[in-house]
Every structure is written in structure tokens, then in C-alpha cells.
């Protein structure tokens, strides 16, 4: 009887919307509930759920609170907590890796007490505090129906040419609103750093009245139902997971270069349960954790990511060039992207290009 109650309680996940942005989900402990872990993250719960379930299986006595927030809200909350010394979360996971690097740089993170495996690449860790958990390429998604002749752009040169030559993509190209999305800004910033195509691409996007969205899901939704023909710089994890259920979507891993983002996790200096947070990080880089991340959510992992991703794409017949992968390394150079003057200059240029009418 008692046990049955407990099991019932374990199954129920209580979801409460605490603020307009934050959404809190509590996983009641299956065991005695002797510990609690608060995760603050920007990742959709559904995407990270397989990893969390595996973790809870391993640590049944933990009560886990999953607080999902927008990346900028999360950054501000973590920064405020760091300044005031108030405990805010036991682990902070965000795709806004520049902000994550800045929080670590500013001394908001504790040192890890677990050792990362040697297979975990150097680019996905910094200062023994910041750890990359996922391996998510930035891809181009397209509406298959919009390309009946199969002239799908395989790289940015094709895309620039396509956007320049025809009017058929007028209002039908979507990408991140980099003023509202940390991930979008990060991808744009990397594009500018990686190649000279960026200026011409911006110009093409502007000429075709690009539509801007705050998240990958918003873009993929519109590509799926035909409102958009092309979505540029969309998170590959969401795209792949979505494509499995919706064949209308095509995915291109740009063959000139494919930016790869790894969601970064760190343990705040004033975490209440650093032990559990370390355990979660250790689990996420363990073989079991990496397998779960490569599962339905297609988040993959920095260690096993390239290999598993290649295998997955080969199986699905999607063209992929592993040589073109350009992971964004966790390094203080990302701080430059957060420099307020540089950001202003970058956004001014962006706005000038994507909203030519506004001038």
C-alpha cells in the first residue's frame, strides 16, 4: 500500500509555471528523498528527459527540480545569484555558451570534483568548471516541397547564390532573432568569424526579408508546414528529432563548415548540492549518459558525438562531412562576443542588413 503510494508519487511530475518565462518541474524521489537537486536549464524538458530518467534511475533518492528558462533570463539569474551569494541552482545548463564562459570567468563556478574521462575533448571543457554535455550542429532545414527539382543548397555559397538569383524565397527564409536568442547570436558570431561569406549571406537574407524567431522549434514548425522554405542556423538536435516524425523536413549539414554547439554545464559556487550536481555531470559524460543523449533527443555528446552522428546520418542517407565540423571551443575568446560595444556594432550591422527597409 505504502509502496504503491510511493510509486504513484514517483510517476507524477509536477509542473508549475513559476514566472512568465520559467517553468518548474519537480520529479519526486522514488526512494527516501534524502537529497534534492535543482537544475536550471534552457533545454526543453522533453529533450533532456531521457538523460534525466537515466540519472534518476541511478540515484532514486534524489528529488530533482528542473527549472526551464530562456537563456538570457537564466544568465541574469545566475549572475545575480553569483553576486549576492544566494543559492540559485545546483547546476546551470545552457546553450548560451558565451554567457556560461563569462559566468565561469567571473568566478561564479565551483571546481568539478569528478574527473572527466580522457575521451572528453579539450574544447568542451574549461577551467575544470565548464563541461560540454551535448554535440549539436547548426544546420539548414528546408521544406522538401519547396525544392521539387532538388536544388537544395549544400553549403553557404549555394545558399548565397540561391538568395541572390531568385525572388522565390521572398519572406520564406527564417533564422534566429539574434537579439532575443543567445544561441542565434552565438551562431551568427561564429559565422562572421569563420568565413567571408557572412556579409553576402546577410545581404541575401535582408533582400529576401528574412523572418526572425526566438527558437529553433519556431523555425522548424514553419518549415514543416510550408510557411518557410528555408531555416538557417537551426539546432540540428531539434531538426533531427523532428524529422524522424515529420518527413516533410529536409536537413543540410553545410559542407563548407558546420558549426557545432555543446550545451555547457557548470556548478555554481554556492550550490546546495554540489555532490549531486557532480554526479549528474559525471553521468552525462559516462558511456551510458552519452548513449541516452544520442537517443531520441539527438543531442549527442562531445565525446562520442562525431562517431554516433556519422553513423546515424549514414543510416538515414543524409550527406555529412565530418571534416567540416567546427565545434565552438569553450574559451575566453567567447567573451569578445559579449563585449557590449562589439555587441552593439554587431547588432547594428545585423539590423542594417536584415531590415533594409528600416533605414
Amino acid at each position: 500500500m505504502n509502496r504503491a503510494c510511493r510509486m504513484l508519487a514517483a510517476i507524477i511530475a509536477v509542473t508549475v509555471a513559476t514566472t512568465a518565462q520559467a517553468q518548474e518541474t519537480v520529479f519526486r524521489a522514488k526512494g527516501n528523498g534524502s537529497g534534492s537537486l535543482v537544475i536550471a536549464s534552457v533545454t526543453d524538458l522533453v529533450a533532456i528527459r531521457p538523460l534525466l530518467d537515466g540519472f534518476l534511475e541511478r540515484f532514486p533518492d534524489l528529488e530533482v527540480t528542473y527549472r526551464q528558462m530562456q537563456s538570457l533570463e537564466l544568465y541574469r539569474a545566475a549572475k545575480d545569484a553569483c553576486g549576492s551569494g544566494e543559492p540559485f541552482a545546483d547546476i546551470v545548463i545552457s546553450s548560451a555558451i558565451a554567457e556560461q564562459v563569462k559566468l565561469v570567468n567571473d568566478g561564479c563556478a565551483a571546481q568539478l570534483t569528478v574527473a572527466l574521462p580522457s575521451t572528453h575533448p579539450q574544447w568542451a571543457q574549461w577551467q575544470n568548471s565548464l563541461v560540454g554535455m551535448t554535440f549539436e550542429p547548426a544546420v539548414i532545414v528546408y521544406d522538401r516541397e519547396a525544392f521539387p527539382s532538388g536544388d537544395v543548397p549544400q553549403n553557404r555559397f549555394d545558399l548565397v547564390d540561391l538568395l541572390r538569383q531568385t525572388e522565390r524565397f521572398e519572406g520564406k527564409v527564417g533564422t534566429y532573432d539574434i537579439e532575443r536568442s543567445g544561441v542565434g547570436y552565438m551562431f551568427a558570431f561564429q559565422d562572421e568569424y569563420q568565413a567571408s561569406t557572412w556579409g553576402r549571406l546577410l545581404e541575401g537574407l535582408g533582400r529576401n526579408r528574412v523572418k526572425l524567431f526566438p527558437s529553433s522549434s519556431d523555425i522548424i514548425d514553419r518549415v514543416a508546414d510550408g510557411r518557410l522554405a528555408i531555416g538557417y542556423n537551426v539546432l540540428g538536435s531539434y531538426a533531427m528529432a523532428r524529422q524522424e516524425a515529420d518527413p516533410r523536413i529536409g536537413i543540410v549539414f553545410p559542407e563548407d563548415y558546420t558549426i557545432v554547439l555543446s550545451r555547457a554545464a557548470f556548478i555554481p559556487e554556492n550550490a546546495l548540492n554540489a555532490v549531486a550536481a557532480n554526479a549528474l555531470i559525471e553521468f552525462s559524460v559516462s558511456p551510458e549518459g552519452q548513449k541516452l543523449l544520442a537517443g531520441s533527443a539527438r543531442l549527442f555528446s562531445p565525446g562520442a558525438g562525431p562517431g554516433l552522428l556519422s553513423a546515424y546520418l549514414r543510416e538515414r542517407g543524409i550527406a555529412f562531412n565530418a571534416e567540416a565540423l567546427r565545434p565552438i571551443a569553450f574559451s575566453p575568446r567567447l567573451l569578445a562576443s559579449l563585449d557590449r560595444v562589439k555587441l552593439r556594432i554587431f547588432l547594428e550591422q545585423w539590423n542594417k542588413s536584415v531590415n533594409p527597409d528600416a533605414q
Partner: protein
Amino acid sequence: MAISDGGRSLSGTVGHSAPPLRQQSVAFRLAVSLFVVLSLATGATIFAAYSYGRTAADEAFDEVLAGAAGMIMERVFVVDGETVADVPTSAFDLLSLGGRERVFYRIVLPGGQTLTGYDDLTLPPDREGQSGPFGYSTSLAGVPLRAMIVTKPLAERSVTGNVNVIVAHTRNSRNILAREITTRAVAVIAAAGLAIFVLAIFVLRYAMRPLERVEAAILTRRSSDLSPFAMDAPREVSALVGAINHFMGRLDRRVNSMQAFVADAAHQLRTPITALLAQTDLALNERDTERLKVLHRRIRSRAIGLNRLTNQLLSHALVTHRADSETLTELDLRRVAIEAEREFRLTTERETPAVMLDLEEEPVLVTGDSFSLKEAVKNLLNNAVSHGKPPLRLHAGHTGNGLPDIRVFDCGDGMSAEYEDTIGRRFQRDASKTESAGLGLAIVKEVADFHGASLYTQRQDGMFSIGFRFPKPDGKTA
């Protein structure tokens, strides 16, 4: 012989048991001092190596800081009357030394307000008028940092003054480099210190070898052999060998004189006892009361003589012993005179003439052993009674030139001139005096010698005096 055999076996057992703590060996003392000195020197060198390591690390990485600051400064422009900085990403790579350091920066406009970066990154306290890149240590939120500031003067229509770029990073790499430099230096220094110490121990053993030779020479010697050592020794040790030889010489002389004394004393005691026995034999067979009386008187006279001889032998032995063992104290000769006179009075017969004490008003201070002095004075008084003529006078005071003296006066002729020359020889007696044992003056002479005083006689105004003259009290020569 028996004593020195015992001494030998005794020293043997002492030599093999643990030595007392404060008698640590010279080698041990030297080793400990060497160890302390070497440790101090090594410690000081390690400290120096550490500060050198820090300086070297700072110098090496300050170049990198200056480079990064310069890169940022190059991207500071004035556009449309407004100062703009497009910070280069590569500057952050450089600044973080390939990601190993946390980095901080700040661009300060001529007016003092921050254009971008960390507002709370502090300016250097004093640049001493330098305009080139200037490195300094600071901290941000409790984290120690090394910072670098570069300055560029802007001279635009809208903006004039100095723009400052400050870059800073954490000290991890510097600490690692400094530690590495220090560790290597420490390893070398510690090895050198250890090597020096080990070599020093060998040198020490080599230097101590002559002492070991002396020790071996002493231990292997026959106990009766008191002849000087003849060995080649270094200068420092030859002093020790000399001292040992000197001591052995003294010991040899003492043993010899003791043997002579014992032989003499045996001889001197045997003769009067034999004579006494002969007299008593005669007395046993004598019927004539007149002659018996004469014999009786002779026996008594012999017995008195024997008594005195025994006393003097014991006294002499005692005085000789005290001369070796007693420490000298400050004393007043007048007190010696008074006590000697009283003891003399108590031990002599009633018909002995009285002794007049002639003492100075002021204390007559000398350094000496009062027991030996009293014995000497009593002997002088005895001599005066036996050989001189009353009245007797015991004087304690100072001579004309201020030397403390103690003397016995009588009204006799004194001793013969040739006898005076032999004063102090044992059993050297006036042949005409049968009761004399010949030891009294020998004791006096010995006491005088061991006090550093001189024994002197004087004839003046029909009086004969004999006594001690001490050296000046301040010239303490014990």
C-alpha cells in the same frame, strides 16, 4: 700499581658505556653545526629561487599581457565623434594563454568612464609617469590578478586625452612556472647541500683521525707507563698531546715522590720503634731503680718523638692531599694566627711557654686554605718551642712593602746557615735533636709552595723569625 690497574679497568668500563649527554663528540658537534648552517643557507637560497621564479614568470607573461593589450588598443577608433572599440577575439586567446587563465579587461575613456569591460578592474595606484605598458598586481572579487595597462593619446576634434586599455588574467600559469623554476632550483640546491654535508662528514672524519690515534695510543698503553707520547700530530692536536704529556709528567713525579715518601716514612718509623723496643727490653731486665728511672725517661722521650713523627707524617699527608684537592678561599691571616695558637695551646704540655699574639689592626687578607695554613703555623710554633728560646711571638700583618705575612718570633739563635739552605727537605733534621722528626719544616715548605708564598727567615734585634710572605693579594695566583 694496584691503584693504576684499577684505574685502567675502571676507565675501560666507562669508555664502553654511553657517554654523558653534554660530552658529545667533537665530530657530532661539528656535524650538527654544519647541518644547521647548510640548512639555513639552503633555505635562504630556496627563498631566493622562489622570488626569482616569480619575477621570471611575471616577466615572461607580462609580455603576453602587453601584446594582448596592444591588440585591443589597435581596435579603438573614433567614429563620428564617438570612441568605439571592436575588441579582437584573438586578444582573448592570447590573454587567456590558450584558455588556461580567466581574463578581464577594461577600456577607459579620457574622461575616466568605462567604455566597455569590467568596471571594477582597478587602475594601477601609481605609474610613476610611465606612458609605456605597465604591469601591476591587483585583484578582482578576491581573486589575485596580474594586470597590464597601455595608454594611447587621442587627438580628434571631439575626443582628446588618453584612452587606457587594462587587461588582466589569473595567475595560474605564472604560479605553475614559478613553482617549476623553484622546484628545479630546490632540487639542485638540496642535492648540492646534501652532497656538501656528506663530503663534510668525510672531511670531518679525516680531520679527526689524529685524535683517534691519540685515543688509541692512550688505550693501548700499559697502565704503569707514564712516559710522554712521541707521535707526529697536527698543530692543534699536538697541544693536546703536550697537555697530556705534561699531566703524565706531573703524575709520574707525584707517584715517584709518594713512593719515596712511603719508603722514607717506613724507614723513619721503623728506627724509633726498634729503639723503643730495645729500651723496653732493657727496662724489663733492669733491677736498679735509678737506672730504671733513666730508662723510663728515655722511653718516654722516644715515645714523644714517635708521637710527633706520626702526627707530622699524617699532617704532611693531609696537607699534601689538600694541596691537590682543596680550593682556595679568601681568608684573614689574623684569624689563622688566633686559631693556630689556640689549637697549639690545647695540644701541648702545660710547661710550654705562652705565645704572644701580635696582630695588625686591619684584616690581613690572603687567598688560601686555612687548614693547611694552621698546620704550618702550628709546626712553626712547635719548632720554636723545640729549637728556640721563649718568649715566643706570633705575628700576622704586612711587611714593609705591603705583602701579607705571618711569622713566628723567638729569642734563640735560629738555625744554622747550611740547614737553612736545605729547609723543606723531608727527614732533614738537626742531628743534635733526637726528638725532631724532620718533617715540620717540610710541611711548612709545602704549604708555602702551594699558596705561592715564600718561606723566609730573619734575624733582627736578637730575635729569630721564620714565616710566610704572601704575594700581593690582588695578584691571585692559585
